[in-house]
């Protein structure tokens, strides 16, 4: 009946949770830790998300949502997986293959970088550059289309919040932000459907949910 049960209730069930989490951890160490790390904290060097915080790229962190990601992946080639948007590479002649977007000049990338850094409280960004960056963000570069006009992201397409000081790639330095704008970003999470059995997939989803669950739900 494990597979028939509501996965979102497993973490709060003291009869079920310990066993599922133990099995899920074994699956995680075997299949997921190579990117997300054994502790699930990911790596800002490689852009593998931290799975232990409350900042969710996709969805809201529910075990059922994670199960779908484990099954069908992110940009993994599985039609049922997530693949709605990529971060364009604005420093290239063709920033984005799916829709026409303008390339940006190095100066414009610097302005966007200033704007993103200013939103995160970085001191010393020139007001004129921040203002020009904002203008690019909500107009020509089209960043608002995924990240939102308030730049707080959109978990329904995997667009990160750019105002919370949590960085997927790098540490929020000028160099790192500028590089992401220039080179783009589109990480892949494999689809494990057909590779792992249903019980393992469900268990690892519950385990990952437990990594960021509020204490009362553990």
């Amino acid at each position, binding site marked *: 009946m*494990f*597979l*028939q*049960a*509501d*996965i*979102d*209730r497993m973490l709060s069930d003291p009869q079920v949770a310990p066993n599922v989490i133990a099995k899920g951890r074994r699956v995680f160490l075997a299949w997921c830790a*190579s*990117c997300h790390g054994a502790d699930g904290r990911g790596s800002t*060097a*490689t*852009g593998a998300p931290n799975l232990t915080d409350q900042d969710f790229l996709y969805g809201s962190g529910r075990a*059922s949502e994670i*199960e*779908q990601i484990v*099954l069908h*992946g992110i*940009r*993994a*080639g*599985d*039609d*049922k997986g997530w693949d709605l948007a990529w971060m364009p590479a604005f*420093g*290239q*002649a063709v920033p984005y293959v799916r829709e026409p977007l303008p*390339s940006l*000049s*190095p*100066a414009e990338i610097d302005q966007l970088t200033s704007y993103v850094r200013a939103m995160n409280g970085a001191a010393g960004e020139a007001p004129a550059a921040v203002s020009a960056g904002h203008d690019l963000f909500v107009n020509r570069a089209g960043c608002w289309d995924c990240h939102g006009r308030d730049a707080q992201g959109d978990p329904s397409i995997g667009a990160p919040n750019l105002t919370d000081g949590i960085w997927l*790639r790098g540490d929020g330095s000028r160099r790192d932000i500028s*590089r992401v704008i*220039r*080179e783009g*970003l*589109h*990480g*892949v999470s*494999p*689809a*494990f*459907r*057909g*590779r792992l*059995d*249903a019980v393992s*997939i469900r268990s690892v989803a519950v385990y990952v949910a437990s990594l960021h669950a509020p204490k009362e739900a553990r």
Partner: protein
Amino acid sequence: MSSPTPDTKPSLRDWWRPDVHNERRSLTLCAMAAVLGLTIAGAGLFSARGTRIAGVPPEDVAVVNQSPIALSDFDAQLRALYNVSPSQATPAQKRAVLDGMIREELYVQRGVELGLQNDFIEVRTALVSAVESQQDIDANATVPTEQELRDFYQRNIVRYLPEGEMTLTDYIAPDLASAQRAVLAARSGGGAAAAMAAAGLKSSGATDDGDEFYFATALHLGPQLFAVAKRLHNGEVSDPIPVGGRIHVLIMQKNQPPVAAVYADARDRVLADYRADKIARLRVGTDRFLRDRADVQIAKAFQ
């Protein structure tokens, strides 16, 4: 216990007795078993339902003509349609979702029976894409070792060159002599811009927006001028360049050629490229495999 003599015909009472030898009984039972077997086979063959599995596997919510409907798909559909978890859904909601999924499965199967993949471009495209995706899924699940990635990076280091950047001005001269005078004056230490102005050269406006990536400059100047520009160092003035009936002189303010990203900075792109290469190889292999096993006949006129 008595046994009949060979020339004695067994009585009807002895017919079922296993300790009494009876060839006619053996033949009769064989014939009955054969008829029963044929009857079962015939019923299975003509009922058109095929062989049924004993039940629905635990990871599925239904099985339609041997095609499973996955529980995970059912849950996802339930959430998409009603925004409820399986435990929150009403029986009516569950029934509606399941009915819809069974109907879809039946129609997909019917579509295959009818050979609709031959008629609908969308179906054909989706099928091709689905087969290709299977290879993508396999390749994307690959976890290469760090050494394999480093080797790949070294073999393909040119991929990890960022765009170079340059800031330059493209001047147009009224004639070759003016251009030569301006170049000489600029190279002799006077201010380059002033030298150009003094000789009557004017900016073409093609690169007046400041610092540009190489690709942008190449677009603005065209390949012939860009080839010259790439070789200029900071502060250098080009010779006069006749292109398209005009005489150009380029003054380079800043030329920053691309420098390959170090491995650590490029690792995520290296991994993506490693997988993309694997996908490309798998596709070539699949193409070859499918062609090898296929009977493809091509009309003479098209050979």
